[in-house]
């Protein structure tokens, strides 16, 4: 009995449970590379400003990591790519018009407070990049919701500000969105290619999906969380997201799931942030639960909440549940006696 107990204690470890020559740093750098298409799309649509914001974000994330590790006497591990990944994800979650102090403070909070104060890589409860973004969103709400129109970068005019598709949907309704984008088909196309206002790395669905497909092919992420996340969003959007065109009254089974899937930070969040090894459940059933929960909270905020977009808060809220999900759904040991009182 004693031996069984010992073994049982050994099995419960932090993810990733990978038994191969893959190392943490290799995975991190691969994820970084898989984000490059979306970053390039962002720079293409929003101009050099997007590159500038992302670069500041990455540099300050790496410097925060180095500084905290020096101060606390930990082994410096900036080469493992995790700080670069946090900085990159944070940068991609900011509007291209963000002033320089936003990525700096965001990275500092992400790395120093969310990651290193909790014990460094593998011990953080919350996704660092998202906490960094939540911090700056709450701190500078105006600068963080001033979106730039994507084409402005090319014609060389001053950046024209506009609302995101979800913002328009929330404030004005679907008819206004169709007015701006023309027809429904062109709305979907523009959303799919990324020609819309939004955070600089979240707009291009196709570029994000290329990176995600690469990660799925390399088996660095599994389908469980992204698919259940997207699926839940689609179902809830279809069932509860509809309104009658004439009166604007609530109508069941009339929503537009494609619009909800392609807009906001959903694809970036579902494939790259809700799959972070550290802050999501490592049990398969738990991952499905996590994805469904993320989808439900996202749609709750999008349809009923004060913010137009809810992916960030959904992932952060579900991060809170990760320990309890993991503890309750972990695989039962065969032949182990049930403990009393459980």
């Amino acid at each position: 009995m004693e031996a069984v107990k010992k073994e049982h204690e050994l099995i419960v470890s932090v993810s990733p449970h990978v038994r191969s020559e893959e190392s943490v740093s290799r995975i991190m750098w691969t994820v970084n590379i898989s984000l490059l298409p979306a970053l390039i799309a962002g720079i293409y649509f929003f101009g050099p400003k997007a590159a500038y914001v992302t670069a500041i974000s990455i540099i300050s994330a790496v410097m925060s990591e180095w500084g905290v590790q020096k101060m606390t006497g930990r082994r410096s591990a900036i080469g493992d790519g995790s700080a670069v990944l946090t900085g990159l994800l944070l940068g991609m979650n900011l509007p291209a018009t963000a002033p320089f102090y936003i990525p700096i403070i965001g990275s500092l909070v992400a790395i120093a407070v969310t990651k290193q104060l909790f014990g460094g890589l593998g011990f953080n409860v919350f996704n660092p990049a998202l906490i960094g973004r939540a911090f700056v969103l709450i701190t500078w709400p105006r600068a963080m919701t001033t979106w730039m129109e994507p084409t402005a970068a090319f014609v060389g005019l001053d950046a024209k500000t506009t609302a995101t598709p979800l913002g328009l949907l929330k404030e004005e309704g679907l008819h206004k969105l169709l007015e701006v984008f023309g027809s429904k088909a062109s709305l979907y196309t523009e959303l799919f290619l990324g020609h819309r206002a939004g955070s600089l790395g979240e707009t291009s669905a196709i570029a994000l999906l290329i990176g995600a497909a690469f990660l799925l092919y390399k088996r660095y992420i599994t389908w469980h969380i992204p698919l259940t996340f997207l699926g839940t969003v689609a179902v809830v959007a279809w069932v509860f997201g509809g309104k009658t065109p004439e009166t604007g009254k609530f109508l069941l089974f009339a929503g537009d799931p494609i619009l909800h899937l392609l807009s906001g930070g959903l694809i970036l969040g579902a494939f790259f942030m809700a799959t972070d090894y550290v802050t999501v459940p490592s049990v398969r059933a738990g991952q499905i639960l996590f994805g469904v929960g993320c989808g439900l909270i996202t749609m709750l905020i999008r349809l009923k909440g004060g913010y137009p977009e809810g992916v960030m808060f959904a992932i952060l809220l579900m991060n809170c549940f990760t320990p309890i999900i993991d503890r309750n759904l972990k695989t039962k040991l065969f032949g182990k006696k049930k403990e009393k009182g459980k």
Partner: protein
Amino acid sequence: MSHEHQYSNWQLIKDGLFKENTIFRLAISLCPAIAVTNGLKNGVYMGLAVMFVQVMVNVTVSSIKNFLNPLVRIPVFMLIISGWVSVTDMVMAAYARDVYRQMGLYIQLIVAFASILVMAEMFASKNKVVPSFFNGLGSGLGFMVALVVISFFRELLGRGSLWGFEIAGGSKPLLIMLLPTGGFFAVGILMGFFNWIDIRFYGGKGAGGASGH
């Protein structure tokens, strides 16, 4: 705490300020430390109010402890506390109107502060009047210092001002520091800082909080 106190009065004040600081060491009464500390002025007034109540409650409890049936001591403590809180409440309502308008509710809530009842139960009900006075003074001072430090940083970072005076004009203040979230950030980071001082300079082990060991 033993029945006979072995500390000097000065030691009692010092303990209340550092070793048994209500917020940073014992981690009790954290609700006001987050709720009212978004401005230095509120922090100072709240600290003063709590210090007054703490001292008066300790003195009262200590002077009547021999007439008290131990079975009903907690209700009696609560009556004493609410009496002194009412006094504070009325005085503040009369002489500090604009502050009272902002945090009147929290003044009344001092009745429920853990720190007041804990000191009355742990110290004043077992010690003589004079040490109880100094214990209350020390613990109240510790509470006030903690609130002042927290609200100093929160107002400075969140509004760029101190005591209502603009001192960092034109900067982009961190709005989050004025929200409850910022309160948690400030309390957590300052608590860590005080633990660091304790560990680094006094060879202590740091404090974990009310539920710690």
